[in-house]
């Protein structure tokens, strides 16, 4: 890849179940829980949003706007050339609110606020509105590829020569209603599980989570650059001819690197015994690399790979994996190349490759 094609991650903003809103700290204090359901540690929104606007905003919008603000401030970018978001389920709280009233009131006496905010592109629209940003504004809504699609579009925009900065984010919120439904679908552990025992206790189901993470991507490096975003691939396993290792080597080949060059694999393992196999295949195919995981810290949700990319970017900058995220130690091996691998219910798989800038 030539120099002009390098895309830099110049800013981060993350609202999550961990203390992640201050980029000067990196998981040095873990919010350890005994639960099957994690909720975001929300910042004081008044630090980011004026009270009159805040009053009307749904929860995911607040989380999204705050994390985007943290990200922009971190990067020093005032006006991005594009805003691209991904969300699996959008503003669920408002969707449920409008749907509930609609059913209870039998289509009468409804008010528009929750309907307006339920629209899937509300977060990216509110960010644009508050910035008065007239540029490209997109929202992807495809399950476990929502954030990845946003990232892929960002890469395309940054390589088309008309765009030099993109504010990209992934966000989803967990509500009581969605937790109940996904519990009944068997997505979560039936009993509470300790944060640090998610991967050692083998059982069906993961822990539910939520979060909003933003990235400022740029064609130029800055003094605060975290990593270079090298490549991204979304894939499924419908074409069962190709094994995971062969898909991986094909993916790495596009960037001219070998599997042995992966220093660290950041994986989306989630403690669900029925989801474990692909992660095992992947970690087996990068034998010399360290392994790190994030879902015991963030919980599982459709855009949790945004938390994963946040963690990978921080690891790259700090040069080491925080204790709480280590699954397999890579010893003293310097971290120059990180592979992020995630899958959602074995339906939506993705690779993201980042390298030292």
């Amino acid at each position, binding site marked *: 890849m030539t120099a002009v094609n390098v895309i830099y991650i110049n800013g981060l903003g993350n609202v999550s179940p961990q203390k992640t809103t201050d980029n000067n700290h990196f998981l040095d204090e873990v919010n350890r829980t005994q639960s099957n359901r994690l909720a975001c540690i929300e910042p004081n929104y008044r630090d980011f949003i004026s009270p009159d606007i805040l009053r009307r905003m749904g929860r995911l919008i607040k989380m999204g706007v705050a994390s985007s603000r943290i990200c922009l401030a971190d990067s020093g970018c005032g006006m991005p050339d594009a805003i691209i978001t991904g969300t*699996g389920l959008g503003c669920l709280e408002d969707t449920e609110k409008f749907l509930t009233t*609609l059913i209870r009131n039998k289509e009468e006496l*409804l008010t528009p606020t929750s309907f*307006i905010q339920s*629209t899937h592109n509300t977060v990216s*629209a509110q960010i644009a509105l508050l910035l008065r940003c*007239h540029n490209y504004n*997109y929202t992807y809504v495809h399950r476990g590829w929502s954030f990845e699609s946003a990232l892929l579009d960002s890469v395309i925009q940054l390589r088309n020569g008309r765009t030099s900065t993109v504010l990209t984010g992934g966000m989803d919120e967990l509500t009581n209603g969605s937790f109940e439904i996904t519990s009944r679908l068997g997505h979560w552990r039936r009993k509470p599980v300790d944060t640090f025992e998610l991967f050692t206790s083998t059982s069906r189901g993961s822990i539910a989570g939520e979060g909003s993470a933003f990235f400022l991507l740029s064609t130029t490096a800055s003094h605060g650059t975290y990593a270079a975003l090298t490549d991204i691939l979304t894939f499924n396993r419908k074409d069962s001819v190709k094994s995971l290792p062969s898909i991986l080597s094909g993916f790495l080949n596009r960037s001219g690197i070998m599997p042995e060059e992966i220093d660290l694999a950041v994986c989306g393992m989630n403690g669900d015994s029925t989801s474990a196999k692909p992660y095992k295949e992947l970690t087996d195919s990068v034998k010399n690399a360290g392994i790190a995981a994030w879902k015991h810290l963030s919980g599982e949700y459709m855009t949790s790979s945004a938390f994963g990319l946040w963690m990978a970017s921080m690891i790259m900058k700090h040069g080491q994996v925080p204790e709480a995220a280590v699954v397999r130690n890579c010893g003293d091996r310097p971290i120059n190349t990180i592979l992020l691998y995630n899958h959602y219910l074995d339906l939506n798989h993705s690779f993201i490759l980042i390298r030292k800038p």
Partner: protein
Amino acid sequence: MGNRVVITGYGIISSIGMNADEVLHSLMDGISGIGEITKFETIHKGKLPLAEVKRSNEELLELCCLKSKKKYSRTTLLGIVAARQATEMAGVKPGQSYRTGLVSANTVGGMDRTEDFYPLFLENLAKGKLSEVINHDCGDSTEKIAEYLGICDLTTTISTACSSSANSIMFGSELIKAGMLDRVIAGGTDAVTRFTLNGFNTLMILDKEGCCPFDENRAGLTIGEGSAFLVLESEELALKEGKKIVGLLSGYGNANDAYHQTASSPEGIGAGLAMAKAMEMSGIVPGNINYINVHGTGTQNNDLSEGMAVQKLFGEYVPPFSSTKSYTGHTLGAAGAIEAVISLLSIQHNCIFPNLRWTTPMKELYIRPVTTLLKDIMVEHVLSNSFGFGGNNSSLVLSKYNPR
């Protein structure tokens, strides 16, 4: 010049026809799909009009040669019908060696089924059939369409309110231009739901008589449903395969109005930017546009804002324009793709379709829409507008294909 993206197939299902031929005849004969609610269950029956697809879910299943109705939302079924027509026209088949992706769009996913699930669930969290709620997310219909068509490569979904499927067409083209895919089936689908009908009703922007876009006495929009898809291919591939090329996607642009969550700016800033970007990419000037298929929802706010932006951009010589939402209703997440297909029909058949139910010019504007069918008119470039909540404005330029 870079590689061009051409259109080799399209499919459409809407209240004015189950396929492109039927839609064309309705457009030519001035037959609107807006009318009294027949199929859809709501308390607004008899009070608000709709532009329904006049087929039950069972009939749609049969049309798709599918058996079980459990797995499919109406949004999915409409999408399968349109996407299948598009791939058949373009000769896209599973197992061909080309990298083929699917980019779809919708606004509320499988909400039509969630609405059936929710009443029981509200009474008791342990109740309600899970099979009715698993189609809820917006990605579900896209996955089902991909499965139906045998698409294994890149699949994704866009949701930017009423500009959703114009944006999926743009992204489809970008994927081809970036060399990531050879072909993309791009479009959108949306079924009428109580959620959206009541949502727009709370905003008091539904016309009780049926929408009359760009009329002084317009009173709002009419909700419609449907789906449309285009098959986009790189020109190189289409020529190599000897495909019949039905049009060129020569330009597009997306911009944000950044004015208000639901209202457009009075001067149509975002709309103007989107149209200008699209024409710039297309390498044409406003004078080259032969027809504008306007967004034209029929709301006070949209038509004024869009009209002001058109006047500012085109000046004295505004080309013929019309809102075909007066036929199809506002099909929300499907609107951009449905209007892209209508634009292609205009190009292929050298005609411009009228804006129905228009009688009185808007007092703020000097422009007025086409109100009778214009035939035997050279249509080389069509500008198609789609604007949505959150100030999301998109414009496409669809052009007659001329080999280089």
